[in-house]
């Protein structure tokens, strides 16, 4: 489906397609330059094929699966790759993947500054954006126009507003988690305007303020990417739902902050790159991240927290002790679950989830 969609986009709209690795990148710039992004999260399932063993088994499955997928020809039709600097693993892939047999597609980079806002990093982001725009111009043969960028910024603001409404109004939304996440995650490869249309449709299912549709046990889920997606059906069957989202692939990419209006759209975009919710791959302080998670939990009245992270993902794992401590002190139970992007949840994982929901249900009663 993705491949067909991609071909259609190229054919009918003359768009270039960029395979994009996780996590944060200036998508507005791509949209403005008529470039479609196809994000590579996994895909789930054990890595197969000739590329499966090019990374050691103790490297995270997001990186391993990406290599296997690309080497097996999964990205044959894209025009180039973009490597945002998420972590040591992704940065390594940026030279590993281009080296795959016969691969001569351009490898573009976008380096996210680490450690939160500083004057130095603000200046750096501006430089990175300029360079990426130049690289994209080379790819598309068209320079960036300020008007198109303003348009793209507005479009993505609109998308973020809707995504925020869906996520923050989750208790009022008459949709299952798996349907909601299917919509949200299609944004990883749909042209933004198509994505927007689907979001609008979903938002029409929001009940008026004050009405509550979801009565199950509300959970805060935090991690890299919700895979396998069957986790949502399992949770529903147990009587729970996702009340708040802190997945790097989803909630952590929804900008809720009001942006300073600026004459120059490049300037606005640079500010935007600092407006994302805290993500350990960007390494704002631990305290800031905890406060943010705390607010998410409070606002959504989550009754429990599931840290659903990818095995061997150091950026996520270093924060786990802190999250446990913070929510432990507040009396909010925390379940720690490591995933390897399996195609299906293991029986043991289901048992853990179920026991956790049982625990929360029991607390509700007493």
């Amino acid at each position, binding site marked *: 489906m993705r491949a067909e969609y991609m071909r259609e986009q190229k054919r009918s709209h003359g768009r270039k397609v960029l395979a994009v690795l996780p996590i944060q990148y200036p998508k507005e710039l791509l949209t403005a330059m008529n470039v479609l992004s196809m994000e590579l999260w996994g895909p789930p399932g054990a890595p197969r094929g000739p590329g499966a063993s090019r990374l050691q088994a103790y490297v995270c499955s997001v990186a391993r699966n990406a290599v296997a997928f690309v080497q097996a020809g999964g990205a044959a039709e894209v025009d180039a790759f973009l490597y945002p600097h998420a972590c040591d693993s992704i940065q390594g892939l940026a030279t590993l993947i281009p080296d795959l047999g016969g691969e001569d597609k351009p490898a573009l980079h976008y380096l996210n500054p680490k450690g939160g806002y500083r004057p130095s990093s603000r200046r750096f982001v501006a430089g990175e954006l300029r360079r990426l725009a130049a690289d994209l111009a080379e790819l598309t043969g068209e320079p960036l126009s300020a008007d198109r960028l303003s348009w793209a910024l507005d479009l993505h603001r609109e998308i973020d507003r809707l995504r925020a409404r869906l996520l923050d109004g989750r208790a009022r939304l008459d949709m299952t988690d798996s349907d909601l996440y299917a919509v949200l995650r299609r944004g990883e490869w749909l042209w933004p305007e198509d994505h927007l249309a689907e979001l609008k449709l979903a938002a029409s299912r929001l009940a008026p303020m004050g009405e509550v549709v979801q009565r199950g046990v509300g959970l805060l889920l935090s991690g890299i990417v919700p895979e396998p997606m069957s986790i949502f059906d399992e949770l529903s069957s147990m009587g729970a739902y996702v009340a708040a989202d802190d997945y790097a692939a989803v909630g952590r990419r929804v900008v809720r902050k009001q942006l300073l209006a600026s004459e120059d759209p490049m300037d606005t975009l640079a500010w935007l790159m600092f407006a994302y919710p805290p993500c350990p791959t960007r390494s704002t302080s631990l305290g800031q991240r905890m406060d943010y998670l705390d607010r998410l939990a409070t606002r959504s009245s989550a009754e429990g927290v599931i840290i659903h992270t990818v095995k061997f993902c150091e950026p996520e794992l270093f924060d786990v002790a802190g999250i446990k401590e913070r929510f432990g002190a507040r009396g909010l139970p*925390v379940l*720690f679950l490591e995933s390897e992007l399996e195609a299906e949840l*293991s029986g*043991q994982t289901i048992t853990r989830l179920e*026991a956790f929901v049982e*625990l929360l249900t*029991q607390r509700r009663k007493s």
Partner: protein
Amino acid sequence: MSGVAIGVDAGSTTWKAVILDDQGQVLASRVAPAEPLVDQQTRVELARLRERTSTSSDVPVGATGYGRKRVGAQRAITEITCHARGAFHITGAGGVLVDVGGQDSKIIHMGPDGSVLDFAMNDKCAAGTGRFLEVLLGRLQVAWEDVPALVASARSAVSVSSTCTVFAESEVISLVAEGEPVEGILKGVHQSLASRVAGLAGLLPPGGAVYMSGGVALGRAMVDALAAALGRPVTVLAEPQLVGALGAALSVR
């Protein structure tokens, strides 16, 4: 007197069941090696238990364990909740329950009313489970019954640093080859497993009892090693293998 509730714990290595009377006492119980067709095994075993205790076939069944959803029970509840219930039924107190089973290990923190406050389970590999012991006992060619005496006779433990079962296996082989005494290695093996389980336990709340259940709790050597690793006395629950089934029965009582 006949039973009023039945609990089945369909684990991956053993199948367990209890029948409770209306006082909550165990009328009859059964522990058997798990068979691949757990539904069939349950039918056959339960029919026998019912007959033994003249319990009618409409007495409700609660199930737990790996095969909980496949035995046609009225309620299926996870091992975590069931173990906590079973343990609370026995002790009437909260605390930390350590259950080391064949394939799974779990640590359950219970409130004073027996409710589950928090829990942890082992990773999917065999480190930290009964399987680790089983494999290494096999390597050392030591029978399960001989373990306590051998460990007690060890002058000191020979350190086994690997907690991974596969690595530990080759480590143990070479320790034997280097002429280290089997008792000492055996003690080391227990310490290694205990340290892994203790790691899973995380920070224990100050005070509060530590209980142990599961098949591995039947071995004194393991209980001692765990107590040492946790720095706390460890009380083994009566009939440690049946705690999960007991909890399952309580859930339908």
